[in-house]
């Protein structure tokens, strides 16, 4: 089942190799990717998600601001009725001091992320996650 994945960085993160790689990886799994690139302001991400109605939103960030930026933008995404059930995941180097503390991972999940991937997560975990998505008319739905 071909799905649409919206791929994006967060507002303060300029890195793009992670996005170039993830686009190739997700396309090889047979899905379509809209890649928003670096330094995506919250408003642009929300607007793009509303416009494209993706089955999944993947946020990838490696500059250490993922915790703060991620928490803020997931709140903005979840504030939209149409995006309340869209699966949204975040992964990468999320804090400035190595792996993110478990409490902060929990906070990100509580704020609305369906999954939080640290730097130890491999391609296989994302593959499995995408494989577990059940498509619905209003975007994907997560089976847990």
């Amino acid at each position, binding site marked *: 089942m071909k799905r649409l994945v919206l791929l994006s960085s967060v*507002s*303060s*993160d*300029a890195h*793009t*190799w992670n*996005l*170039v*790689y993830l686009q*190739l*990886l997700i396309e*090889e799994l047979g899905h379509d990717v809209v*890649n928003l*690139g*670096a*330094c*995506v302001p919250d408003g642009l991400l929300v607007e793009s998600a509303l416009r494209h109605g993706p089955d999944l939103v993947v946020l990838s960030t490696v*500059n*250490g*601001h993922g*915790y*703060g930026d991620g928490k803020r933008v997931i709140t903005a995404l979840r504030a939209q009725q149409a995006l309340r059930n869209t699966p949204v995941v975040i992964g990468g*180097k999320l804090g*400035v*001091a*190595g792996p993110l503390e478990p409490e902060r991972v929990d906070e990100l999940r509580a704020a609305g992320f369906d999954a939080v991937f640290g730097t130890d997560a491999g*391609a296989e975990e994302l593959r499995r996650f995408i494989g577990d998505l059940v498509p619905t008319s209003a975007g994907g739905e997560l089976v847990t």
Partner: protein
Amino acid sequence: MTISEFIAQDGVLVVQPRMGFSDPDLMRRGLLAVAQASARAVATITLDSYTRVNDVPAAAVALRDGVPLNGYPILNHPPSVTRAMVEPLVAAGIPVQVRHGSALPLEIFAALAECGLAATEGGPVSYCLPYSRVPLPQAVDNWARACDLLARAPGAHLESFGGCMLGQLCPPSLLVAISVLEAMFFRQHGLRSVSLSYAQQTDRRQDMEAMDAMHRIAAVELSDVDWHIVLYAYMGVFPRTRSGALDLLGDAAELAVHGGADRLIVKTPAEAFRIPTIEENISAMEYAAAVADEVARGDPKTERLVDTGVYAEARTLVDAVLDLSPDIGRALRLAFARGVLDVPYCLHPDNAGLSRGVLDDSGRLRWSRVGRMPLPRPPDPGPGRSTPSADLLSALSYVERKYDRATL
């Protein structure tokens, strides 16, 4: 003392960290540690990534909530705080360079002037295409005004980040061309002291060839200003073992000496995992300086430079851009709009995105697609070894694997 006076002083390689902390006290400690290190070192204030995208409120929230930033928010701290922070270095004659990463640096440059700082870096292309979504014409205009402002400061120095485009997988001829063109843009906007960057890539001999090409083209194009070359230790995925990371850094120091760079931006063994501490920065700088010293005292290099066409390609690209307009900012805008310059793997909407760089079997970077750039069309590379994502990952981690394997 200005960076160029400092470099000229005793002829040894000058080293420099990329250090930035949100707290002025910690930042001051970092600056003092650089000043006291046993290396000839320029100090660095790296700004945080909220400041880079002009998001002053987000930096303010982080400061209020005690969330550490990945650099120094110079627009949030009062100029008096920043002035006091750098005062001991100014007094000791140690130059301080501000590294910021902004595509729209005017506000930051205005803050530098208020803080008495006059050395910084970046460029209208090198800080726009890879790191922002600002339209290139807007970045060029903003950089032009920012340069005009900076040029009025006594001792102003501006370094082009053009030799570091995307950190890896960009064939060297394009890195050389962009660095030279940005330095020419700075000169057109009044700067009299500039530097050109080049980032260590995957193959020492190819890097030597590229640095030679940069010297030759800069000698012609920048003959009426003060200039030097700054080498960046490898900017891609860093080795994970300590000895692999130090080997790579040591090779960068050797390359800097043999390739004729006057300054080296170091990386640390911590780089693969997190933002390095002050102590890690200092020890990496001291290590690089010691290697450079040993190399400089040793036999002069005997290997012959190979010519695989880096100079000819870089010269062709520079000439093709200069032909578009006598106004270099306008020439750069037209060059990207027409694909005369095209950075591989760059996702920015104003980059043509038709070019691709690959690693060949000998570990050298080459073009697999040149798009509309006026360069020789490469032979068909044939099918990749694996899937495109696996091939990309393998190329991105080539240096990491090479240096980590050597130490196992």
